[in-house]
Each structure stands twice: as structure tokens, then as C-alpha cells.
């Protein structure tokens, strides 16, 4: 590979191409999945249970063998240059497991050593502080609660200062307050330049924090885009307004409103909005048409689908209607 080609390739932290996994029992957990994770991004990998997220992460982590496909990691072939890649990758597995013989501090020192890095005590202390484990650092890992163990897993994945961190449901079973602080911490790490790929069931948080998103459904990729692009493309928007008087059927059938597919919603009407090729909503036209038919409204609101609505629609689990 030429230097130039390599430099260009480095722009992607991960390039997954045609990745397929068929388990020995015949289960096709991943089916020809291709997407890229730009370096420095905060990437959400979403999908209902059983979609194949853990399988994909396990292949990245070298815990599950791929059936077909390739992955480039920071420009290198992940399956051929495992040692190089592993040194720069930190993974938080979905299942929590610890060696009961060691304390959290020991776990972090040992993990650092296994990655070929002499334990950096200051960094270990900082991780323990930031992940709120300092008070338990020298207890046996058996004494830790579920939430603490998960945070220790996060610390473990970061102890060798990887350039890419992959977290499989890092916030599962962690309460709201702590989850918030955990997200803050991950955002901080991301700002410092670390690429983060994670799976989560908290779509609201993913929408707020992640700048890229991929959605899997039954082993197939259904979307992979910058969050903003996906939302602009797929999140439907509506203008809801309540006119002064009663809404009559004849008004709803008015030709000027036809393109907005008007419906009665919550004592008012709801008009479906569309975007032009530059992504601008036709909210002004809709408003003007509504005023022409109903007169000035007494209440109104623009409603947009959130990531959860889009997710549910894309993964065929039915959707909320606005």
C-alpha cells in the first residue's frame, strides 16, 4: 500500500466490509454487513435484541471467528495484523466476568501488562476516580455490585489508552444518575480523540450523544450514517395546529391541504411535512395552507420523530404515530 493510500485509509477507524457470521448451528447472525466508523467519531451501533451487535463486536475482539468478510482497523487488516490492532483497541464485552482472585486495581494493572504496557499508576488512579471505583479499588472484585463491575470493565478497556474503544451495552443496568456521568466520561474521552463505538438500548441518549449511527436488523445493516443525515432523511416531521373553531370534514378534504395528508390529532390537525433536496422543511407552505383553510390557529407546534421512532420503523417493530 502506498503511503498516500495508507494515510487516506487512516481516516476510518473501522471499515467493515461484507462481514458475515454463520454460527455452527446454522444461525446467520451477520449477513453481508458493510459500514465505516470514521476516526474520532462517537458511533452508535443499534438494533433490537438478536440483531447481531454482540456478534459483530465479538468478531472485532477476536472472540468469535468471522465466516466471511474483512475489517480494516485504522487502515490495517484486522484479521491479519491482530497484535498491532489489539494494542490499539479496547473492548467492553456485554457479559460481565471477573477473576475472583484479584482486586480492581490488580485487574487494571494486569490488563495493562497483558497489552504490553507497564502499568501507569497515575492513569489507573484517574480511571478508578473517574469511574467512581476508588473506594473499592482494593477490595475483591467479588464484592462489587453489578454497576461497579460494569464500570470496572470500562476502566479495563481504557487502561492501555486505546485509540478505538468498543463498548457492548456499557450502560445496561446502570441507574440514570450514574449513566449520565458515564456518558459524560465517554464524551470526554471522545473529545480527546478516541473513537468510540457502542451499543445501547437508551436511544434518547444515543441520539443526543452520538454523531454517527448504524442500525442492524436480523443480521443485516439497514442504515449507517451520520446521525444528523439519518434524522434529516428519515425522521418524519409534522405541523400540528389547533384552529379556533370546530374542524369540519369538508375542511380536511380541502384540495389545498391534500399534499400534507391532514389528520385529526388531539383536538387539532396534523399535517405531514416534507423536505426539499436541501433538507429544508416545507413548514411555511403547510402553515399558509392551514391558515387559508382554517383561519389563524390558536396553538401550534412542529413535531419531529426522534431516533426511537426512526429505529422502530426501520426495525419493523411498529411505530408511534404522532
Amino acid at each position, binding site marked *: 500500500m502506498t503511503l498516500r493510500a495508507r494515510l487516506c485509509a487512516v481516516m476510518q477507524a473501522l471499515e467493515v466490509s461484507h462481514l458475515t457470521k454463520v454460527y455452527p448451528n446454522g444461525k446467520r447472525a451477520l449477513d453481508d454487513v458493510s459500514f465505516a466508523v470514521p476516526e474520532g467519531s462517537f458511533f452508535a451501533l443499534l438494533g433490537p435484541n438478536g440483531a447481531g451487535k454482540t456478534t459483530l463486536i465479538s468478531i472485532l475482539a477476536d472472540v468469535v471467528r468471522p465466516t466471511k468478510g474483512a475489517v480494516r482497523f485504522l487502515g490495517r487488516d484486522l484479521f491479519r495484523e491482530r497484535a498491532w490492532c*489489539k494494542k490499539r483497541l479496547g473492548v467492553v464485552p456485554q457479559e460481565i466476568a471477573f477473576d475472583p*482472585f484479584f482486586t480492581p486495581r490488580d485487574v487494571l494493572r494486569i490488563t495493562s501488562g497483558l497489552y504490553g504496557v507497564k502499568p501507569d499508576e497515575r492513569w489507573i488512579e484517574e480511571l478508578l476516580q473517574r469511574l467512581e471505583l476508588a473506594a473499592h479499588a482494593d477490595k475483591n472484585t467479588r464484592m462489587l455490585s453489578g454497576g461497579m463491575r460494569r464500570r470496572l470493565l470500562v476502566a479495563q478497556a481504557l487502561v492501555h489508552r486505546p485509540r478505538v474503544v468498543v463498548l457492548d451495552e456499557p450502560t445496561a443496568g446502570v441507574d440514570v444518575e450514574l449513566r449520565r456521568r458515564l456518558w459524560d466520561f465517554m464524551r470526554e474521552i471522545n473529545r480527546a480523540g478516541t473513537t468510540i463505538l457502542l451499543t445501547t438500548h437508551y436511544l434518547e441518549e444515543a441520539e443526543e450523544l452520538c454523531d454517527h449511527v448504524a442500525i442492524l436488523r436480523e443480521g443485516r445493516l439497514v442504515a449507517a450514517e451520520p446521525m444528523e443525515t439519518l434524522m434529516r432523511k428519515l425522521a418524519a416531521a409534522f405541523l400540528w395546529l389547533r384552529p379556533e373553531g370546530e374542524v369540519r370534514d369538508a375542511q380536511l378534504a380541502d384540495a389545498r391541504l391534500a399534499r400534507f395528508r391532514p389528520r385529526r390529532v388531539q383536538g387539532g390537525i396534523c399535517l405531514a411535512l416534507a423536505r426539499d433536496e436541501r433538507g429544508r422543511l416545507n413548514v411555511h407552505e403547510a402553515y399558509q395552507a392551514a391558515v387559508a383553510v382554517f383561519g389563524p390557529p390558536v396553538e401550534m407546534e412542529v413535531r419531529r420523530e426522534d431516533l426511537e421512532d426512526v429505529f422502530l420503523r426501520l426495525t419493523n417493530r411498529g411505530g408511534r404515530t404522532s
Partner: protein
Amino acid sequence: MTNPYGCWTLFVREVRRFLNVKVQTIIAPALTALLYLVVFHYAMGARPRAQLPVDYFTFLAPGLAMMTLLQNAFANSSSSMITGKVMGVHVYLLMAPLSAAEVVLAFVAAAVVRGLVCAGAFLLALVPFVHFAWPHPWLALSYAVLGGAIMGALGLIAGIWARRFDDVALVTNFVVMPLTFLAGVFYSVQSLPPLWRSLHLANPFFHLVDGFRFAVLGVADADPWWGLAPLAAAALLLFVLAWRLWAAGWKLKA
């Protein structure tokens, strides 16, 4: 080796694991060996043993030391591997930037250390009671390390193969125990009928016990120098096998 520091860390971790529970992993096996020594000495020691050039007590001790070493080296790597698999912590080893050879080396080296420490504790306890000539100390060490390496690699393979603790217990009870007990620890093969004698000569553990005893006492049933080469070959073979299995992810990766 691409990650010597990682390999060293894993080795230290495996040594710390057994040092953490030393009553169970060192004191208990050393005590068991002492009990065998005392019981067999008093049960059989009184009878005259024409074939033995030394007294029975002295004859028993090095064989028991080697038997303890072999059993504990096996126990160390097999139990560590199966515990890791059952608890799910083996994924951290799969994830770490360690080559398969580095992983196997660390496990086998820790098993050797466990075996040496157990046998050493047993022999140390005997210091006030019996004097060994140690005519060939380096040969003794070679046999000890080879025995530990063979059993460490075998234990690792058993642990990789096993799905449950029961599977490891099966190998321990039906392979390791019979082969180490029928390795001429308690008797001289000179006293056996010809068929039994050839069976013993075919048992690699017999050569480990016999060679070690020669190095400690200066007396042997078979040629102690010729025993080394096939044992070294066996250790190498098992090492390579464990390495290939780990590298292939056999029974480890879905």
C-alpha cells in the same frame, strides 16, 4: 515474540493465582506426599527389599516428589483454563495482543513453577530426616522442568478441551492419576513381572520418576540419560499442540 511484557504479566498472574490459595495449592499436596511416604514406609518398610540399593524411605522420596510435581503442574494449567472458561474470563486473553505461543508459554511456565514449588516444599520438609546425595543436580532440574512442562501443556490442552469442571476431573482421575501412580514411584520395576515391566517402560511418567530419582540418589532402573531426549520431544510436541489449538480457537471461539 511480539509482546514479551504481556507474556511475563500472564505468567506472573498465573503464579499469583496459585500463591493466593497456597494452603490448597502447595501445602496440601506437599502434605499428601508426606503422608504417602509415612504410610508406605511403615506399611512396607519392614519387609526386606533385596532389589533396592537404598532403604525404602529414601527410595520413595524422590519418586513422590516427581509425582507431586506432575500432578500439580497438570492441576495448575487445567484448573486455571477451565475456571477461566466457565467464568468467561478467558475472553480477556483472547482479546489481548498475545500470540498463541505467548499464552501457552506463560501457562506452561506457571505450571512448572507450581510443580517445582510443591515438590520443593515436600523435599524441604524431609531435610531433617533423610540425606540425598544429589549427584546430578542439573539433571534433576532438567527432569523436573520437563515433567512440569509436559504436564503443564497437557493440563492446558485438557482445559481448552473441557466444557465443565467434570471433564477436567475425568482426565485427572482416569489419565493423570493412573499414569503417575503406575510410574514406579512405590516400587522398583526390577521387581515386576516382564509384561508389567515393559508397560512401565512405555509410560513416559516412569522415565520422569526414574530419571529424577537417579539424579537425586544415583540409582536408576532404566538409562536416565537416554530418557531425556524422548521426554524433551514429548514436551515440545505437547507445547506445539497446545499452541496450535489456542491459535485455532478450538473450543474457545464460536
